[in-house]
């Protein structure tokens, strides 16, 4: 067992040693007027592993140097005001497979279908959502901490302990008491696992996997949530038919009229089928030139596992969408 201070010292010594070695190599090469190896040269001919890896290391360092030169030049050019052409990085979302379910700008059929769906009452009449939040049968302390925050984040939300009620019955009773949605969170091994969002009275039920949860309490420099104001809602990138339906379900959780004075926004940002939930307070500064964001939290990532027609009925409910591993053969195919 090495003592901590000794470990730190050893590390410093090792770094100093590495630096010495590198300097020696460089001086040797300079003495013999050897150029640094170009990127892409092959060192297969060097059979000695140590020497070979040394050469590869030099090549990489050289490449890094060149790259930072180019980058600096670009930045300087921009500062001077010149037009700088940057390459667009190739990411999977940009190479998304063409999907016929992506809803175009104006599609009367889709609009008419949405005018007849389960959420229309909310969108047309501005019906105020009333949400029932509950958990699996034995929630842990972390769950309570999270729900305490959630109840403040989403307006008009009420927590009810699960006791021994079956989920189907909860949906029925909530419907009788004029609730518009039921959200049931569940954990596995002390870690938040997923949430069922069931719209009432006969709306669809979606199940989302929750990952990367960070509570508002854990936010460094975070703002506090003032739950007396209605938040503003941002729904990004829900392009397909399924995406629109899920977006409508999220939208139906929040009151239609936001209170802009509260300067509080909730974002559901969809990228690559992952929906990121973020909750910020924004401040306009410099006469509206800049906007500073302060995170209120919580923050988590959602992934839709299934969308089921009707209120919760895992056994005999009809599924509109189920995520299955075999549907994900192509990495460029997204459903939301």
């Amino acid at each position: 067992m090495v003592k901590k201070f000794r470990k730190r010292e050893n590390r410093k010594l090792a770094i100093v040693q590495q630096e010495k070695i590198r300097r020696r190599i460089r001086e040797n090469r300079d003495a013999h007027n050897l150029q640094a190896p170009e990127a892409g040269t092959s060192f297969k001919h060097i059979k000695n592993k140590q020497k070979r890896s040394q050469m590869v290391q030099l090549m990489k360092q050289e490449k890094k140097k060149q790259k930072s030169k180019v980058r600096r030049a670009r930045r300087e050019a921009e500062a001077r005001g010149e037009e700088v052409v940057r390459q667009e990085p190739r990411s999977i979302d940009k190479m998304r497979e063409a999907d016929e379910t992506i809803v175009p700008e104006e599609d009367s059929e889709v609009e008419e279908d949405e005018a007849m769906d389960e959420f229309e009452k909310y969108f047309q009449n501005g019906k105020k959502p009333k949400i029932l939040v509950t958990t699996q049968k034995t929630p842990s302390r972390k769950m309570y901490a999270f729900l305490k925050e959630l109840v403040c984040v989403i307006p008009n939300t009420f927590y009810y302990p699960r006791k021994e009620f079956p989920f189907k019955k909860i949906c029925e009773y909530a419907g009788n008491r004029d609730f518009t949605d039921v959200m049931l969170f569940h954990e596995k091994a002390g870690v938040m696992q997923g949430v069922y969002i069931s719209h009432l009275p006969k709306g669809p039920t979606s199940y989302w996997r929750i990952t990367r949860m960070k509570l508002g309490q854990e936010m460094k420099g975070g703002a506090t949530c003032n739950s007396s104001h209605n938040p503003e809602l941002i729904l990004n990138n829900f392009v397909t038919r399924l995406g629109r339906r899920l977006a409508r379900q999220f939208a139906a959780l929040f009151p239609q009229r936001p209170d802009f004075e509260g300067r509080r926004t909730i974002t559901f940002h969809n990228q690559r089928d992952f929906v990121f939930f973020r909750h910020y307070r924004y401040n306009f500064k410099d006469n509206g030139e800049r906007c500073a964001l302060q995170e209120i939290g919580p923050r988590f990532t959602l992934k839709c596992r299934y969308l089921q027609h009707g209120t919760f009925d895992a056994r005999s409910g009809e599924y509109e969408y189920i995520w299955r591993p075999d549907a994900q053969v192509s990495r460029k195919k997204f459903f939301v």
Partner: protein
Amino acid sequence: MKFLTGDDTGLIKVIHVEKQKVERLGDRRRGEAVQRLCWAGPNYSEDAVAVAYASGALELRDAAGRVVSNASTAPDVRCLQASDAGLLTVSSDGTASLVAAWGKESSFSEQSYSGSAEATLEQFQLQAPVAHAAVDPSRPSRFAFGGLENDVKIYDLERKEVVWTAKNVREDSLCLRVPVKVSTLGWATKMCPSRSLITCTTTDGKVRIYDANSQRRPLFELLIGYLVGSGTGGYTGTMDDTKRPQLCSKVAQVRGDQWALLTADTMGIIREYDLRNLPKSEAASVPPGRKAHLKLANKELPFRRGYKGTMGAIRDLDVHCSGKALAAVGLGRFAYVFPTAGKQMLTKVYLKQKLNCVLMSSEAMIEAKKEDSKQEEGEEEQGEDDEVVDVQDDAPAETVADEVEEGFSDDGAEEMDGEESSKGRKKKRRKSFSRQKNEKRTKANN
């Protein structure tokens, strides 16, 4: 090949598969879901189609989509079929209506395009609740119906009464009464005219086979997904042990003269069972629910194959009259067309709405054999009316030099039965070289 679909918003669409076109059949009725479609031209030809809506409204539309005649019955229509005495509709509360003027006797000329001509109905009451009813194709004067806690009954239209009632199976191994949850019915009398075979699927994920000529109890009861067929016949994913409700089923001839029972459930899994043993099936001596019975049922009604590639609950199935293609529609907003022989889906059509029913026409299937040009991958949307048809056929066919001679037999040998996966996989590997050749052939043939 052409088929019609009816959806949740009241639209009826006609899909021409080879031409890759989607059209609407006339105007829609706003806000009413189309529940059932049926051919109802003169002599039950395809000159006209009868439409049943969720509100109970019935319409007869001609081939251009104009409404020729109207009628009205109880809401939530579960069955719309041609019978001896006219077009039969059965609603879930048990109200059955016969429209004599439509179907067999209907004849329309220019005068009858009056739009809202009311057709006369003959109504009678059946025991509620009715989940499904099916007319016996070889004796259209009788039909079977059943529902939740409403066991299968055969109603005779000539005698106007129930002539046969099924009896529930014996108690299960815990001495509990087995619930009766009929969800769909079918007749296998065309395959075997000497017996009155009824196939009944339940919301429990079971299939009961009755023979009305021999006894009231089912001959046997098959548990779907027991030992075989628990996935889609090839799909990888979590094995679903839950017994799911079967939303639709069809008894049809596929691949020539093989009779099959196709059934689809709320998860969107379509399964095909072979009916060839039914003419000789005896009543099982072991009561259902016991292991021996389950195994026996698997033998009597072997699981043949699944159809892979669907998303969302499948609400209706229809088989082409030649038995070569199968259309399935559901909540995933797609219409899928599968060949009964061969794994690759023929087409899937995005239809924007949740689909409730599908009706195949007998227009012949044009089988593409040697296609030298690439098939269109899809059409662009013209305005908001056309949908994009996604042709799932693969990459361009090989040049003529690579083509295999005609007369190639169908791909039946290459299919792997659902859960014989490990065995199938081994077979796959051993046959690798010939399989490559065969794959090329299938690609060429598609």
